[in-house]
């Protein structure tokens, strides 16, 4: 366990542009350890970029990003790799390795990054697959899984290294209401049962309100609201109020 006692995640005046397209402008927020932040906003407002910046998959043009006490924007590659070990990432389309079975998808990071024996790896994979409800599917290839199963498998892979921070990019996109609700339930369990810090990018306000303790609303690259649902609802910002409204279409 880390000795860090401050917020698990801090974005400090982060600026990111792709050519002339300014995706994030001076975005700052923090997430206390063990809480869930849901990032809401219309498409193309920089929500997924926020998660990729956090995972150090892309670099900010300005600003600092702190994860569990480390400024990942100033780390060398070895340090970045170490910082990533603290995080798990559920990608929008799961991003499972399509040439590997479900078991191999999960065993790969365990084989490469831990000293576990084959038996321990088998146990860890079985355990996390059982946790997400895919216990009997470990020999299947990603192409034979349904959308909901792929999300669960992606979540299982994100959890297999037991991260402290879980990042989920549109975990319920493309899923029916019941399956989306099951994924939300799994995210909630990570927070409640394992004390994980969870950051979710979503359009699904219903799911976000279920999972999130705090909400960040991005609009045209700006963070226009950050706080609890009731704080945003009483903020006076009409766009933020609309984006967090349960009536807002997913």
């Amino acid at each position, binding site marked *: 366990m880390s000795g860090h006692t401050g917020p698990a995640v801090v974005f400090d005046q982060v600026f990111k542009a792709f050519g002339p397209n300014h995706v994030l402008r001076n975005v700052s927020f923090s997430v206390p350890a063990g809480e869930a932040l849901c990032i809401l906003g219309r498409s193309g407002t920089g929500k997924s970029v926020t998660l*990729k910046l956090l995972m150090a998959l892309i670099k900010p043009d300005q600003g600092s990003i702190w994860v569990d006490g480390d400024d990942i924007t100033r780390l060398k590659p070895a340090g970045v790799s170490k910082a990533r070990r603290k995080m798990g*990432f559920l*990608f929008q389309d799961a991003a499972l390795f399509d040439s590997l079975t479900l078991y191999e998808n999960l065993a790969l990071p365990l084989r490469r990054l831990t000293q576990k024996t084959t038996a321990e790896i088998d146990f860890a994979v079985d355990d996390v697959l059982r946790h997400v409800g895919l216990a009997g599917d470990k020999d299947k290839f990603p192409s034979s899984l349904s959308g909901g199963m792929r999300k669960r498998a992606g979540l299982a892979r994100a959890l297999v290294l037991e991260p402290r921070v879980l990042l989920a990019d549109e975990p319920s996109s493309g899923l029916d209401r019941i399956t989306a609700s099951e994924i939300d339930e799994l995210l909630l369990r990570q927070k409640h049962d394992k004390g994980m810090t969870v950051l979710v990018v979503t359009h699904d306000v219903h799911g976000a309100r279920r999972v999130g303790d705090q909400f960040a609303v991005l609009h045209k690259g700006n963070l226009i609201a950050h706080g609890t649902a009731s704080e945003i609802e009483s903020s006076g910002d009409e766009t933020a109020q609309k984006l967090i409204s349960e009536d807002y279409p997913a």
Partner: protein
Amino acid sequence: MSNLIEFVGRVSSFGFRVIGDGVRMPFEGAQILNHIIEAGYKSLPLVVPAGFALGTVMTLHTRNTLMTFGAGAMIPTVQALAFFVEIGPLVAGLLLAGRVGSGIGAVLANMRVTEQIDAIESLSIDSFKFLVVPRVLACVVALPLLTLFMDFAGLLGGYLAEYSSSGASFSLYIRRAFADLQWANFVAPTLKTTVFGFIIGTVSSYFGFTTNMGAAGVGRAATNSVVVSSLLVILADVILVKCIFFAFPENAL
């Protein structure tokens, strides 16, 4: 022109990174072996028949001319020299560029587009070392071996064409084929295919790994991988042949 220079710089930098990461721990032994099987063993059904057919056709084309000049006995020698010195290495290289280069470009581009490469990075695994280095090394190892298969398949095809015309015995054909073949005719041209393999692996991986154009980028990466690596293999061949002649002047026939 500046785009071309920029491209050369980027691919060169990519190639140097392959070399640097290739000698850095951990070595991806299992990955390399998998890709050697993919690039080498699975290319045999393409390379062997192609070599056999080329050998047959070459004998059919050259036989009459050589017979006209009373040089029928030279047919096996010409066949062996042509295959071991030039046809085997070059054609094997071009076939590998077509089969494996397009595959590498398409697979890596697809992995980029579907965020699988980001997923590998997010798991604290160096995606370049895990995906690119084994593919390039596999091409470097597999191509000389494929070249040998092509050389001997070509020789066999040539023999069967000759046998169907003159009924020459296999032992006589082989004796004459290797009579004038020096080690330098065999070793240097075969080893030059390691450079071809490096070019094919590096260029194809570059196009796949660096694509940023969504689904359209997958097709473009596959096409560019084949076109550019084939072109560079031919250009490299010209340079390497000059180098071989410089190193082994007796080979300059």
